[in-house]
């Protein structure tokens, strides 16, 4: 398993897997299988896949630590960029079919409707992350600052879930499922951080005691 993850060719099937939802949509479109409201179908599918890829991306760190598979990190950027890719498609369905590319109407909509505001926020937050996803940008920003910036994905995921929750009329089960998954993934990070901080402090205290008695 670890050697498979480290193999440079493994990225190819993962990439194809990430592209599959788009393939399914194109296939449905070509065979007239998008239902009575094709725009809504595409909008919901791309929205769903954005959330799913955000969840996949956020799963990498917990999984690689829990399963002790450090090589999983090689796939994080690709998954994150696919989240952004589906978010772009999702945003395009809003820009075009929903708002007829009327930028002033879009701006009013974003300002007025919380459900659009959070969705738009979730999307906009992903833009700098996509731009700075390259090795060059990690170098330029420095690892620590780069990491700080990329924590914006937490906010993006939370906004994405709220966006979904505020969209549905009464059946909140599905958005709540996403909310639960994202909550677990973020709470794991909080727990991990607290444990690590506790350890550092314990070590620091020990060193201090050692130097005081010495």
């Amino acid at each position, binding site marked *: 398993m670890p050697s498979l993850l480290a193999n440079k060719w493994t990225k190819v099937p993962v990439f194809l897997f990430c592209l599959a939802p788009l393939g399914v949509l194109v296939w449905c479109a070509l065979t007239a299988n998008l*239902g009575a409201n094709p725009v*809504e179908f595409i909008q919901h599918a791309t929205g769903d896949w954005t959330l799913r890829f955000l969840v996949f991306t956020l799963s990498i760190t917990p999984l690689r630590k829990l399963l002790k598979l450090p090589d999983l990190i090689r796939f994080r950027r690709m998954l994150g960029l696919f989240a952004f890719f589906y978010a772009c498609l999702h945003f395009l369905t809003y820009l075009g079919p929903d708002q007829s590319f009327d930028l002033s109407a879009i701006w009013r909509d974003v300002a007025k409707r919380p*459900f659009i505001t959070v969705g738009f926020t979730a999307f906009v937050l992903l833009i700098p992350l996509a731009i700075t996803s390259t090795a060059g940008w990690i170098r330029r920003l420095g690892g620590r600052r780069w990491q700080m910036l990329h924590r914006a994905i937490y906010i993006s995921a939370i906004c994405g879930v709220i966006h979904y929750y505020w969209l549905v009329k009464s059946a909140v089960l599905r958005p709540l499922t996403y909310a639960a998954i994202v909550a677990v993934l973020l709470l794991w990070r909080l727990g991990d951080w607290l444990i690590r901080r506790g350890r550092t402090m314990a070590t620091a205290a020990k060193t201090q005691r050692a130097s005081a008695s010495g």
Partner: protein
Amino acid sequence: MLIQRKPKLTYADVTPKELYFNRRKFLKAMGIAGAAAFAGKNLLDIVSPPGGVHAGAKFTNLIKSPFSTTEKTNSFEDVTHYNNFYEFGIDKDAPAKNAQKFRTSPWTVSVEGEVKTKRKFTMDEVLKLAPLEERIYRHRCVEGWSIVVPWVGFSFNVLAKLVEPTPKAQFVAFESDWDLGQMPNAKPALAGIEFPYVEGLRMDEAMHPLTLLSVGMYGDSLPNQDGAPVRMVIPWKYGFKSIKSIVKIKFVAKEPPTTWNLANSHEYGFYSNVNPNVDHPRWSQAKERRLGEIYRRNTLMFNGYQDQVASLYTGMDLKKYY
């Protein structure tokens, strides 16, 4: 110069429903023929089951209504495979899948409350109350999509006059069938709304000639997923006001509870008139997507029935009474 006119297609030019239903039956029969032969069953019973899966002969001699719009109707396929009927699931394509076996015969509609003659109507009696009309109405869902449907039915006021409401009757309350045995999805935990589904109209709204008691669409009986065997259609209100599969009609003195208002009074009012100027708290109602179109079109005041119904609401603050 030769000017060629595009032939004007109507829904009647589409493949007749019996044809493709028969095709499906045929395909289905092909699949089960082997099993049936094995079980020793009569194949004919499966191809054409006793009682008829698709009940109801085509209505003939429907009266064309002056209330009909000349807009292009949506396809039967779109209308019957994209709708809300939470008793049969919350997805738009769920009713078409889950309502197929819903039993609509025998069926009675109980009329009670503040009336001189309380009565139970069988479906046969309902069908004979008045000559059936075809009414092509715009139908606007609160979610922002719309369709144009050729309904079959007659003004609700025909039935109302027959039972003679007393002066105490100020509102009409409607109730849908609720049968968990046939509607396993009709639970509040799954649907997010209470059951049975209830709706209501003010007396003058109910008596308005546009308010339709519908028993069919596209010249045939109502498909199960669209509220068979009898439903209301109030074309100037959001779709959820047009209650489906009615079992009870009660004339009452006070404003009756309505399902979506009970679920979320902040978002869904008793009146729920189509109004592009009063937004849903979460989204705009200024535009709608007509099924079959990409871009959204402007929503019309009272869904385009302003001339007929605006007078019902003279002096009312429609922002307050949404």
